[in-house]
């Protein structure tokens, strides 16, 4: 660990004459140009609608709800996600399913994507593996605010079946 002085040289005469350094710069940019035009491409741009970026596994995209083996929504409307949400964008109304093993379920599950900050706290707070942000889809724009309030149906559209064990049974 040391303190070092940054190397700072005065310009040499050649550098003061502009031309050599300009040429050096031109060499860099021309090389890059020729490379991109003819050779191995070094292009960073992704041609979006045709080519889609491959998001990493942890990418926090649009939310989705998972289902149980029987296809019912896994969420039990415990509302921890809306509690943990710093933006307060999740609105759930709980209902009684009656009869079933887990009698509570969300009658309505609504996320306002315009308010959401995609922090992933809901996913982290969910005690049932019911809400996930691993859909790999980023939110799309729309022409009305209402369309950005997505409901249970949309959230279940690309929902997956969660196979996480729950309830400590069978251990």
């Amino acid at each position, binding site marked *: 660990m040391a303190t070092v002085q940054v190397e700072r040289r005065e310009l040499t005469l050649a550098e003061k004459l502009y031309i050599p350094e300009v040429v050096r710069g031109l060499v860099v940019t021309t090389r890059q140009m020729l490379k991109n035009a003819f050779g191995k491409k070094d292009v960073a741009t992704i041609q979006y609608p045709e080519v889609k970026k491959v998001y990493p596994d942890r990418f926090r995209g649009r939310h989705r709800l998972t289902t149980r083996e029987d296809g019912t929504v896994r969420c*039990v*409307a*415990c*509302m*921890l996600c809306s*509690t943990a949400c710093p933006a307060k964008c999740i609105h759930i109304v*709980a*209902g*009684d399913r009656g009869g079933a093993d*887990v*009698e*509570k379920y969300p009658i309505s599950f609504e996320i306002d994507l315009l308010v959401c900050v995609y922090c992933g706290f809901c996913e982290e707070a969910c*005690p*049932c593996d019911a809400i996930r942000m691993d859909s790999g889809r980023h939110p799309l724009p729309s022409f009305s605010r209402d369309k950005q309030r997505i409901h249970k149906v949309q959230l279940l559209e690309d929902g997956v079946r969660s196979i996480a064990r*729950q*309830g*400590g*049974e*069978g*251990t």
Partner: protein
Amino acid sequence: MPTMTIDGQEITVDRGTTVLQAATQLGIDIPTFCYHPGLTIVANCRMCLVDTNKSPKPLPACHATAMDGMEVWTQNEKVQKVRKSVLEFILVNHPVDCPICDQAGECVLQDHYFNFSAQPSRLFHRKQHKPKAKVLGPDIMLDAERCILCTRCVRFCDEIAKTPQLTVVNRGEHSEITTFPGEELDNPYAINVVDICPVGALTSRDFRFQTRVWFLQTGRSVCPECSKGCTIRVDTFEGVPRRYKPAHNPQVNDWWMCDTGRLSYSDYLDNRMEGPTTTVDGKRRVADTESAVRGAVEILRKEGAGKVVVVVSPWFTNEDAYLTARLLKGPLSGAAVYMGGRPDGVQDDILIEADKNPNRRGVAEIFNAVGVSYAPLSALSTAGKTTALIFGDNHGLSDAQRDLLGGLDHRIVVGAFMTPLWRQATVFLPARIHWEKDGSFTNVDGVVQRLERVVKAAATAKSDGWYSMKMGYALGGGYRFDTPGAVFDALCHDVPGFAGMSYSRLGDHGMVLGSGEPPLVPSPDVATDGPALEAAP
């Protein structure tokens, strides 16, 4: 008078005091499940075990009585270990139910586990299964798996409700709470068992899955369903009351309240009328508050006080009553005054009173002190009258009375709900209801208690007293107050029974009429000029 030491602090207590009570006096918290100050002690949960010098084994603090020279440690390693073990045992068969359990957030088991254990499970085995979502009565659901068998509910039914309906059956880990065969948990105080259940075993069917408790905003209020005036908490979510909970008040209701009162909140959620209307050229029009009040005042001024019938309500807060009394004593003196209110109903000797109006005592006290005389509504007569000024809308009017009033030229109605009166009103002034206004009620025993404004009313709705004040001012008997507190101060100044009270002195438990010390400083004179402020009391 034994003297003992708890966590190094010395205390002298009365003979017979338990260690738990002594610790509470010192401000030391000892966790409990089965102990409830209103019930008998059974010491079956073992959560309150503390280490003492009087016994090699830890003693239950709720049951152990204080002894002279006793030393108690509530925090030492032994106690902590014991607590962890107790919690571990309790949790062995506890289902992983927090997400669907209504109790989560106010669950004593959650609190104690988190505060005193917070360690991973060591046991991996199949949990014991018991009935879930079992209907115990019209208002109660039981989840026997969640039950920790503290038997508070059983004791409550035996001791407080005096209707033994619950019991524990089976043994060991098969034990469960249930009703006696053929019985239902349907006593008038049944929902109190939900309050005292430390976990989510007993839940209210009314509140079931409504919302999560940690989202609730809460405020203190008074149950208006009978003249007992139980102290309650109004819990609201998104601005809508979702439940009543009794609040501890040794002067009135201890820890309890009746189911009728508890479930009454939903009666006030629908049918609200929050827009003022006036009648112009025989047609009903939506108006703004200002012009509606002006319309009412014009009628009253044109007709004169002598032609007016006034129906007052025992649902007034004390403040409303005082302001209305000032109106009736002042600009409207000479009007015939009748006291309405809901008719009497059932009563018992626990909490329920026959008089189903919350503030009859307070209104009477104030009207008498100000000097307004009134007759009961049953004596209603409209002879020689042209105008009715009706406060409140739950008076139980008979058809005949309604016809009488309908025969008058004008009816100025101050009400909150869609009732036949609303249809008859010439001028309708929307009122606030009890959880929408600051104020106070006086119960049948003379206990004056505060109401807090828990819910924000529509901007057009004002309290009855505010209308009285506005009308009084417009009719030339000007007086004004900026806040309900100021009204109450003036009221305490003018009404002998209230002497010495103020909002801050009422505190959590209220004060009994006549018990207040006279105020050291007389309350300020009431301003009688200047415009009435828009700030609604």
